[in-house]
Each structure stands twice: as structure tokens, then as C-alpha cells.
């Protein structure tokens, strides 16, 4: 059956049987996962066999996810695009878990001296931004909830990847993003109220 809007087939793989189809799909997922870890590899502190292992585990878990969600595929895209998405997501999740096991800085560290560097402020021009970042620090302490503050400290100050924080807080990407989204909005409002920045959202 075709999706009338996209023109793609709704059910390109049999839910059961068709071992050769699933074998072929697994091969594709391994290729996509390997290519994705290679694409991200230069920015990761992961190399060699560990990267290869990460790709194979991501492909295996993507295949499990696809098997479980096959009935949810509605033909709104090509089937392979839908399937590749799970391989990419699994690579992200595996990388997040890797950083959780091997954090560059303690996840609960709190070093405010990192803040200027996080936003690229020039140390030589500290007189120009000292008041702004002081106000930002106060707003983080005074305006945010404990949860928003913890997420801000981890992601912004400590540079913890969001997918790593997901594991640390036993949460999900959407919830952590929403927490940071609300924190950003509050901080902008606080800085705007004090005249440090413009008030448009």
C-alpha cells in the first residue's frame, strides 16, 4: 500500500520472516553507523577498535528499534531514510554513554571561571563584559529552579553533552532540552530587565 501524499510504500519489509531482507537491512545499518562514527570521530575522544565496536552496537540496537516500531512506519519518507534515522540516534546515544563513563570534567563540577571562554569573550576586554557575566551568574543563582540551574551548569559551564546528561539524570533529550529552553528564556528576561541585553526573545 502507498502513502497517498508521499507516494512511498507503507510496508516495505515483512514483519516476520524474510530473513534476507532483515540481513540486508542490518548490513545497511552497519554501513550507516560506521560512516556516522567516522564523520564524528575527529571530535570524539574515541578511536580505533572502540569506534568500530560502537558502530556495530549502534547498528544492532537500531535494528531492534526498527523491528519494534515497524508498524509505526507510515510511508511518509523512504523506508531507508526512516531506518537510517535509528542508526544515527543509536550512534548519538552510544557516544553520550561513552562520555558518561569517561567524563572530561566531573559532571557536577561548578567552575564559573569557564563561563567567559564558553561564549568566546576576549580575556583582554574583561572590563567590557565583567558586569554582564556577573549579572548572568546572579540570574542563574536567583531565577532558575534547582533543576534548570543543574542543567545550565552541566551543559554550559562544564560542556557536558546533552545526551550524556540524559543518562546522568535518567531523563530524555526532550525533557533536558525543554529545561534548558525555559532556563534560557528566564535568563534573557532577567538580563533584559537589568538593561544588559535587548528584550526580544
Amino acid at each position, binding site marked *: 500500500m502507498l502513502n497517498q501524499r508521499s507516494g512511498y510504500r507503507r510496508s516495505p519489509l515483512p514483519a516476520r520472516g524474510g530473513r534476507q531482507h532483515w540481513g540486508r537491512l542490518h548490513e545497511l545499518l552497519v554501513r550507516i553507523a560506521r560512516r*556516522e562514527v567516522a564523520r564524528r570521530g575527529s571530535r570524539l575522544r574515541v578511536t580505533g577498535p572502540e569506534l568500530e565496536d560502537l558502530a556495530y552496537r549502534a547498528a544492532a540496537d537500531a535494528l531492534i528499534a526498527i523491528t519494534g516500531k515497524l508498524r509505526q512506519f507510515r510511508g511518509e519518507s523512504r523506508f531507508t531514510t526512516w531506518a537510517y534515522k535509528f542508526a544515527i540516534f543509536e550512534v548519538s546515544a552510544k557516544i553520550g554513554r561513552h562520555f558518561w563513563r569517561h567524563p572530561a570534567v566531573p559532571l557536577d563540577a561548578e567552575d564559573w571561571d569557564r563561563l567567559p571562554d564558553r*561564549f568566546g569573550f576576549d580575556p583582554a576586554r574583561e572590563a567590557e563584559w565583567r558586569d554582564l557575566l556577573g549579572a548572568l551568574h546572579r540570574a542563574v543563582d536567583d531565577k532558575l529552579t534547582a533543576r534548570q540551574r543543574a542543567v545550565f551548569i552541566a551543559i554550559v559551564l562544564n560542556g557536558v553533552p546533552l545526551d550524556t546528561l540524559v543518562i546522568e539524570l535518567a531523563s530524555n533529550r526532550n525533557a533536558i532540552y525543554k529545561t534548558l*529552553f525555559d532556563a534560557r528564556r528566564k535568563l*534573557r528576561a532577567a*538580563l533584559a530587565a537589568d538593561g544588559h*541585553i535587548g528584550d526580544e526573545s
Partner: protein
Amino acid sequence: MNGWAELDEFLRTDPRDVGCAQAMEMMHIYADLVAAGAPVQERYPGFPAHLRACGPCAEDFDGLLAALRDETN
């Protein structure tokens, strides 16, 4: 980008931002449209609004697009 601009960009929130859950749910549809050269900004404005602010989803989307482009080469 200097510190002021980067901080300003970080604090800027877009009400059209669909969030990670919806972005991840529709990413394959959007990727196929982008790969086909369709005018997706008008059709799904909340998706690019999210990608501009969410590093992990933008990274995933870049990876998915790269996979599709790799497929055609």
C-alpha cells in the same frame, strides 16, 4: 562570533521551536524533503527553528543528510 553575539544567540528562544521529541519524530520526513530540494522552511518552520538551537538534533540531522548524500554518490 564574539562573546556578546554568542551569548545573545544562546539566550534567544524561538516560539516556533518544536522541541526534540517532535524533531526526532519527523526528522526522516524532513531529511527526504531537504535531500530532494523541497522548500521545507515554509512547510515546517518549527523544525529548522529547533535545529538552530539544539546541537544534538542538528548533529543527528547532519548525519542523516550525509547518509542520504552518501547513498546517491
